[in-house]
């Protein structure tokens, strides 16, 4: 199959590569660019482990074909600074168990926090849970994940 030139920005860095048009963004990231922080649990758009931000929106990278990412700006977990409040909060609250859902979870949460900073409203928790509801976690039962998102948003911890 013919290759095409893919031009995109990943974690702030411009990347140009020749690739096949049926490749997914997930494959481009993991295989062509070696960014293995983005995980996969199905490659069918069912689990959310492959979540990245494309132009600020959270997407399942396994469902984005390479040409759709053309000219786009991609943020993967490698592009989130280690001192980012979400990373700190995930580590501090015990929201990371096997860690396989974590990168995708953090990016989905980031998209949420980026557009919904911290205004107090009663539905905030529910909205946060909704924001990560496309990201499945088999380990934590989600309680600590919500806790982490709250902490990262500067909200009071609801435990002790």
């Amino acid at each position: 199959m013919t290759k095409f030139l893919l031009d995109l920005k990943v974690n702030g860095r411009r990347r140009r590569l020749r690739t096949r048009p049926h490749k997914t963004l997930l494959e481009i990231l993991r295989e062509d660019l070696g960014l293995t922080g983005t995980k996969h649990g199905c490659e069918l758009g069912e689990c959310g482990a492959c979540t990245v931000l494309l132009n600020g929106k959270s997407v399942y990278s396994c469902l984005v074909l390479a040409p759709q990412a053309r000219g786009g700006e991609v943020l993967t977990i490698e592009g989130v600074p280690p001192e980012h409040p979400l990373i700190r909060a995930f580590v501090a609250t015990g929201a990371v168990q096997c860690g396989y859902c974590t990168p995708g979870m953090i990016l989905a949460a980031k998209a949420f926090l980026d557009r919904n900073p911290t205004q107090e409203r009663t539905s905030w928790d529910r909205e946060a849970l909704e924001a990560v509801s496309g990201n499945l976690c088999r380990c934590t039962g989600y309680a600590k994940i919500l806790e982490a998102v709250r902490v990262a948003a500067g909200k009071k911890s609801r435990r002790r």
Partner: protein
Amino acid sequence: MDAFSKAVGRALYADDLRLPGMLYGKILRSPHPHARILSLDTRQAESLPGVRAVVTGRGLPVPYGILPVSQDETALAMEKVRYVGEPVAAVAADTEETAGRALQLIRAEYDPLPPVLSLEEAIRGKGEPVHAKGNLHKAVSLKFGDANPPEEPEYTREDAFFYEGNTHLPLEEHSALALWKKGRLVLYSSTQTPFHLRKILAKVFGLPEDAVRVIAPKVGGGFGGKLDPFAHDLCASKLARDAGRPVKITLTREEVFYCHRGRHPAWMNIRTSWKKTGELLEMRFRSCLDGGAYGSFGVVCTYYQGGLQPTTYRIPSYTVESARYFTNKPPCGPKRGHGTPQPRFALEAHLDKVAEELGLGPVELRLKNLAPPDSTTVNRLRVTSSGLRECVEKAAEASGFRDKFRKLPYGRGIGFALGSYLCGAAVPIYWNEDPHSRVRIRLDAKGGITVFSGATDIGQGSDTVVVWAVAEILGVPPEKIRLVAADTDRTPFDLGTYSSRVTYMAGNAAREAAENLLEKVYRRTGGRRMPFEKAARIAVEKEGALESWGSYKPPLKPANFKGSGVGPSPAYSFCACAAQVQCDPRTGRVRVERITFAHDIGRAIHRPSVEGQIEGAVHMALGEAFLEEQTFHPSGLHRGPGILDYKFLSSLEMPEVKLILIESKDPGGPFGAKEVGQGPLLPVIPAVANAIYDALGIRMDKTPFTPENILLALERKSCGRIPRVGPEGFPDIPFPEPTHIPASLPGETVPC
């Protein structure tokens, strides 16, 4: 521990690894549930450009299995295929695409046989059995304690239950990467048991064990699903040898469903006799397991059917009969809770019915019959610390159980149940005299501390426990300790991550290693006058690096009879759960409003991990209660080998979990700690079933509690039939005469 590296995406899982010259492997799987393989022609596949190696059953003929008594699998099917999805051939090629195309070029001819797809069919045994010896894999029959109940029973009740099969679904799909270096095999695999996998690889390839190195990188969830050695481990190794290049095989989600080794479907029957005042006199528990195509951990699972009922309740006279049958479906095996969630569901739902008929509260009935701490159960298990009574009281109180039970409006209800689990099996899979866990600590010339542990952290936090134990004893911050784990070359032996053994066993080994190091260091500085880190610098200055070892071996099991190896543990965890539900009688939908959970954890070493383990177990339990089922079409096809069809709870469906941690300080546990990973799953499912009865007056005697089943039971109720969904009676199984193990054996020293 490693949460940070996982959170920033630096932690490496098996599929993240890549080696120069690496090939991609793929596995061809059977489209038939039961068929003879007539021919397999791989010539076309072999000649496809880019294909570097092809292997079929004949290339890997040595049978193996995780249990020594069940060496009944080969990496690739030999004469027969026994389930849809069974591996029959594998290829390695330059790219994944080429490997996929090569699979399509393999000509496989089959002669289909009538499949055995249900317990009924397996028992009836028409047509060719799944294995030559017949469909019955294992039948166990044991009678414990008094031959007859100690008093004339005043009330007897019998119930039947069915527990549907389900699977682990770890978020990470299994992956294996193999390479050969100077005749030595190196395998990176997402496994929970690197040392067992090494043993199997050595067996199949005819190598000494030290010619095989298995490394478990970060593992993205296991829950028992990554315990068995798998075809992809063996095929990657074989293809790598034949191609002379590294080979990686990463499964698709669909293939993970075929690997399975998950929860056995179980048809159960329980009969108990009582005094009117609520004292349990006698129990007979019968269970029949649908094992799928191969043995896996099945024999152990069969014994576990009757194993842990007595750790929660005193049973003077106890009979257990359990059997496992082969069927043409992916093999069942150990999933979180192993063979105990099914009987726990049956027992706790049965007790709810007994309590109602005796006119006692469910909590009161349970409290009357609790197994006491520091005692030996009727089936010879030694219970040490037990915070069970406290769990029951606290969970009842915090949930407001007594005020709500039978008093909530129609459609809302509350249910109660107990659970108990092992802290590691006292008897290893492969019997030997060695310790179950060893830990080594090295203090290097610069005073750096490295801990070497063979335990695999599959997300449950065992690394944290090991490092924390060392840090606590040495009095240094955990961040200063480096951990090398789960590498059969670099780390000392460990049995692996199963039966909730890691905290207790590796934790104890780590504690001992740290104590030994402490002593060594202070001996060199002549006393404990200074903090460890300073003393350590002086000590290594004097004589270079220092090293210390610790190990753990559980106390011997209390009794010796066939089957007594399953169930003994150095300690047991206990828990109690109250579930409150709201049901919609028009749609059959149930919303869990709140779970109140009290767990006797011994001691909470790292509180967030403990809470996370319980919350995760509750989450998985609710999935099993309401959504999860691994079932098959009459053609033998899996009904939905994908996450869209096989549903579990998302963040929006998870109810509030109120946790109460009870610290009973186990005398043998590291710092008093006990397990927390598996036990909390157990009581949730029956608590929910009991709550649904409280809400709607219908009995869910079969999992999962789907809207369809709830509506069916409601319909039965409205036309005056028995308001329940579940099986009747129990199949006719040729159980052997029970072996009687009386209340005390001659010459037996009963501890405590």
